[in-house]
């Protein structure tokens, strides 16, 4: 019962400030742009309108690759929104009234977890819609089949929604461990934009390294979604996890962070 109340409270909290839709707009623009450019390049080369420097890619499965950019580049957004769900509470000291209303602190985190999944799914829908709209639009200009009727496309979108939801709860875990908002944002951006891409690129080059790298969160996420530009360009798909293992790994990251946070920062004195 209490969990329903605290979830409703967290839901109101999440959607009564501007943060979520500002990030959502940036997500849509960013994903649409990326998918559009990818569709332009791949579609143009595949259809022969643009001259490629390498071998001509096949048009089969090209649409899925373009659409997967939603999670491939957009996963930072659910991660950020999840992190902010926790760190804003510390930053604006709203944890005081929150814990006064719900002294069982674990329940607050559980409520955030549920709302995090809701926000993650919402971002997943927005991101997928942006990728499909921009990608399919550009692909059809070049006469490449957008594959909107294909069950593969819809499976891909379903898995992307799952990935978005999991990234949001990973973000909540990160925010619970790293209370400082600025520090948390810097860590999230540094890891997702610099550290992981670099290490994964190296992992594709050094043999044996990819067995470690495939357990990284973004690699697990790509495995879950099944197709990525990153995977297509670097590792060659050799060391990738099964899609469901990828999902479990991502969930494990979220749970580990949440448990660490629950027993450290979440138990601390609030002042």
């Amino acid at each position: 019962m209490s969990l329903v109340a605290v979830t409703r409270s967290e839901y109101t909290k999440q959607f009564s400030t501007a943060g979520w839709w500002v990030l959502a707009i940036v997500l849509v623009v960013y994903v649409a742009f990326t998918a559009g450019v990818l569709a332009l390049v791949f579609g143009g080369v595949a259809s022969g309108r643009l001259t490629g420097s390498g071998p001509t890619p096949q048009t089969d499965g090209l649409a899925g690759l373009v659409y997967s950019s939603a999670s491939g580049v957009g996963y930072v957004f659910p991660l950020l929104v999840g992190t902010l769900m926790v760190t804003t509470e510390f930053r604006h000291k709203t944890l005081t009234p929150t814990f006064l209303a719900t002294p069982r602190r674990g329940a607050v985190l559980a409520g955030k977890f549920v709302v995090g999944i809701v926000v993650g799914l919402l971002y997943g829908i927005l991101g997928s819609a942006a990728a499909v709209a921009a990608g399919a639009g550009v692909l059809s200009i070049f006469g490449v089949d957008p594959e909107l009727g294909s069950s593969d496309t819809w499976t891909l979108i379903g898995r992307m929604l799952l990935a978005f939801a999991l990234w949001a709860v990973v973000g909540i875990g990160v925010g619970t461990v790293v209370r400082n908002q600025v520090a948390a944002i810097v860590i999230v951006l540094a890891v997702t934009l610099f550290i992981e891409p670099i290490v994964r690129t190296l992992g594709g080059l050094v043999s044996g390294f990819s067995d470690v790298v495939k357990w990284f969160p973004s690699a697990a996420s790509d495995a879950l979604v099944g197709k990525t530009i990153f995977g297509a360009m670097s590792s060659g798909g050799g060391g990738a996890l099964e899609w469901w293992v990828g999902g479990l790994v991502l969930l494990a990251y979220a749970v580990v962070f949440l448990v660490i946070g629950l027993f450290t920062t979440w138990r601390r004195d609030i002042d």
Partner: protein
Amino acid sequence: MPEGQVLELTGLTKRFGAVSAVDSLDARVEPGLVTGFLGPNGAGKTTSLRMLLGLVRPTSGTATIGGKRYADLASPLQTVGAALEASSFHPGRSAANHLKVYARAAKLPTSRVDEVLGLVGLADVAGRRVGGFSLGMRQRLGLATALLGDPGVLVLDEPTNGLDPEGIRWMRSLLRHLAEEGRTVLISSHLLAEVQQTVDALLIISHGRLVFQGGVEDLADPDEYATVVDAPDRAALSALLDERGIPYQLLRNGFTIRHLEPVEVGALAAGADIALSNLQSKGASLEDIFLELVSGVRVHASAGGTTVPTPEVPAAAPTGVPDAESPAPAPAPVPTADPVPAAAPVESLPEPAPSTAMVPVVTPAPAPRAAQPEEPRSSYSVASTGVIDVVPPAPAPDQAATDTTEVQR
């Protein structure tokens, strides 16, 4: 109508490393009264309140609301309403949405949001973002949050902070009204004057320890009074007083003489042919007593065994005082009608009474922050007129040993 609950702190202690923010605090707050929780900045008020509310984990001891810890309350917001600081808001959220968040958590109907916003006078700005609110408006929103669950207990930290005079007046009458309904109202402040007119009972802490517990009327002793006298020829008057060995303080508004009736002072001056420009009686200032209590100069019996005896007077430790819960009369020397300057009745110090109007800052306090080497410092006093005089340190340090507070000039 929710019932007020008794708040009880038992041996409540919070240590941050070696520093005791709150040190074995025993206190009881009764329903139906407005209780003021006083102490200087850093005395441990906020930490005590946060321990009561389950936000800070006590090092030892307990704090209960109607016998239950905060975390064990079935419906916390309907039992206790608290406003701890004027900044617990997301600046981007509207006032109404802020309240809605906590109404949802406490399973309260959202109609309650509009009710409390109307109650605190924020109905017109319900949809505005809190980021644009003034401190006074935030204070009101904090109070609205506290009142959301219509609780029987209200715990407010510095509720009048940032309010304009009209707002302070409104807040006072609201708190009185809530207490008259039978609720428990606990408000903290670092200024006695701010709560003096509102509170029925007082808890005073200093350096994390209880120094007074009881009614406002127990704070001041009716036998403490002073005569204020002034003359155009102040030199002659001070010479006369010196000659008679009468201790006095020279403040802006004249000489303050303790335990001497105006009629006696007047007769004295008349006998010496000194024309007076002012002669009046004044009661003991509660602010003075408050400052003495928190600085450790004065020890009140209601503090029970919790007060650390000052090093000079180990025998005077009020260890025999049995109760810290009821403001029993002090077991100190019985006040006499003797108008000769004597020890203040509630003093347990065997030394001649320090003046009650001047609080030396160099008193040996148990806290580490008072551990600086003894050096003459400016003391200060708050006269009943509200004028704050800064008094330069005594010229002769040896004089301060026996009579720390009398400053002659």
